């Protein structure tokens, strides 16, 4: 197990380094003004000097190496245009905190609800619960989020008499964004779990369990749910980590100062350093999420072996 994890971790690291190099190299093609906040007023000589000072005239591999070394030291560099000359770490840390808080609350609510709905739908396939759930899922998946987000915001804030916009010191202002985020999330958990469970119920080993006299409810939870949840377990670490990337719609609707849309903003402002940091951050989160997902899945599914096959078959 440990050996497997370490091996996977090493492989992930290599992926990350390759990714950093590629993104780094690509960003060098971006216009130079992305490194200055007053590019228009500078003379070519000043620009040249500035670039040298920042080490941007060094050979690429030196730059990549330096970037990685700084990353390891926890130094993400400075923002040049988004917020002039302030450390990037200081800019994104509070944003990550807010986005993650919202995302984790949302997951804590939607995971149990979504799984419960999925179980109900699979159990009563074709009956009332399944139809109701299907109507909900189809609605959520088919209608663009922004449409029902607006309704939630308008009617929610009127009916519940809570402020429309986010306020750090008022927990009630988190309710509506959480609902907005949870609705699609619940629907996708329910959809996948239902599907996996229906697949499982048709398998032979469920018939055998029935034939050996296992009571129905026990079959549903000990066999069907247990086996259907494996692929969902794989997704959970990734979704959990991805909460730090925030959500563009919800955060802008409620003016939540989170990570949602930050990448788009910094690209628009041509803040090369911040683009670099955000891309690396999201990529790292994605890679680590996959890694943790695989490890989590290996923990619940014995068929995923950590060592080479022993030729038992």
């Amino acid at each position: 197990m440990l050996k497997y994890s370490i091996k996977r971790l090493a492989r992930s690291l290599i992926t990350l380094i390759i990714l950093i190099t590629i993104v780094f190299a690509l960003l060098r093609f971006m216009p130079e003004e992305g490194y200055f906040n007053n590019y228009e007023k500078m003379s070519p000589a000043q620009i040249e000097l500035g670039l040298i000072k920042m080490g941007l005239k060094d050979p690429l591999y030196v730059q990549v190496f330096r970037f990685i070394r700084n990353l390891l030291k926890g130094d993400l560099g400075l923002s040049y245009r988004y917020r002039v000359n302030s450390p990037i770490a200081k800019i994104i840390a509070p944003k990550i905190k807010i986005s993650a808080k919202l995302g984790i609350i949302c997951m804590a609510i939607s995971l149990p609800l979504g799984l419960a709905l999925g179980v109900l739908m699979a159990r009563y396939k074709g009956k009332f619960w399944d139809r109701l759930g299907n109507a909900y899922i189809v609605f959520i998946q088919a209608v663009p989020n922004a449409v029902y987000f607006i309704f939630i915001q308008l009617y929610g804030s009127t009916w519940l008499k809570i402020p429309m916009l986010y306020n750090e010191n008022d927990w009630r202002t988190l309710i509506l964004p959480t609902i907005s985020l949870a609705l699609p999330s619940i629907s996708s958990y329910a959809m996948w779990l239902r599907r996996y469970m229906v697949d499982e119920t048709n398998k032979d080993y469920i018939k055998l369990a029935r034939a050996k006299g296992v009571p129905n409810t026990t079959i549903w939870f000990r066999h069907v749910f247990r086996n259907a949840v494996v692929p969902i377990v794989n997704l959970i670490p990734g979704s959990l980590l991805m909460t730090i990337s925030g959500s563009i719609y919800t955060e802008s609707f409620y003016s939540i100062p989170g990570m949602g849309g930050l990448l788009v903003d910094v690209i628009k402002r041509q803040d090369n350093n911040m683009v670099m940091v955000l891309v690396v951050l999201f990529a790292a989160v994605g890679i680590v999420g996959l890694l943790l997902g695989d490890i989590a899945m290996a923990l619940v599914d014995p068929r995923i072996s950590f060592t080479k096959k022993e030729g038992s078959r």
Partner: protein
Amino acid sequence: MLNNGDTILSVKDLHVKFSLRGKVLNAIRGISLDLYKGEALAIVGESGSGKSVLTKNFIGLLDKNGWVDSGEIWYYGLESGPVDLAQYKTEEDWQGFRGKQVAMVMQDPMTSLNPLKTIGWQIEEAIKLHQGLQGEEAKRKAIEILSDVGILEPERRAKQYPHEFSGGMRQRVVIAIAMACNPQILICDEPTTALDVTIQAQILQLIRNLKDKYGLTTIYITHDLGVVANVADRIAVMYAGDIVEVGTCEEVFYDPRHPYTWALLSSLPQLGIKGQDLYAIKGTPPNLFNEIRGDAFAPRNPHPLKIDFLYRPPYFDVSPTHKARTWLLDPRAPKVDPPEIIRHIQGIKLDTMDVKANGGEQA
């Protein structure tokens, strides 16, 4: 060999129907059958003849769109007296009966085991349900059963998962699970079809040994007459949702009376003559969505009687243990000889009809 002892299960004029795409399918058309305690009954017939459907009624595993339309299935194995299984409708009715009284071994061992649970766990689950043992006791019992079904190093193997077992070994585990239920009747639904031929004989031998050791009543569902010859005391031949002939193994093999049984036996590859085409039954089985008039086999019978198309034959007794549903046995019927090839069978010893020599599916 034949046990004329107590009847353990008695099916009386059973009709089972299915609702499929808005139409009603008559899957079982008035079957009556007695099963005796401790015997091995083989139910043979081609695909779709209703072999599996019939036995699923004994364990409450009929598909959701099927139902017992009329008839009775009396089970005599309970101390509290006989029960009519045809009256069992809900899951709750079957609870406590399934597994404990009737257990089942299914066709495909590769998919019959839960891939995420250890072998030991899956056997213990049955033990806990039906033998009232818990914890260490259940664990020990599971290991005992594993070694009973011929799995070496049972302590170690019990901790392994299904994917660490070969097909034949998995079928042993499936049998172990059935045995862990400690049932009265064991239904083996084509237990060797998915296995390669060298393993088939071992599995049949194993089931036979367990039957002798525990006095199990076994029902084999198969279309492999080689399997039948090896293990069965009695044979019931099914065609189009009906049992057309039933008798001891010797009676059905050496003295078959129904034209369908003749046709089925004629298609045994072992009886084929070198250089000639193997015999195949012409035509297709009748559509069970329609009402069947007369003898269901008449349209495929090379020499049908007129009455075969008009009236359904009753059972005629050939001997106290042998009966067939064909007008040929009526005293007024003209004498029709079985095909040449059937008379050859007398020359073949049953035991030599080894599964290894058998070419697979008949008909």
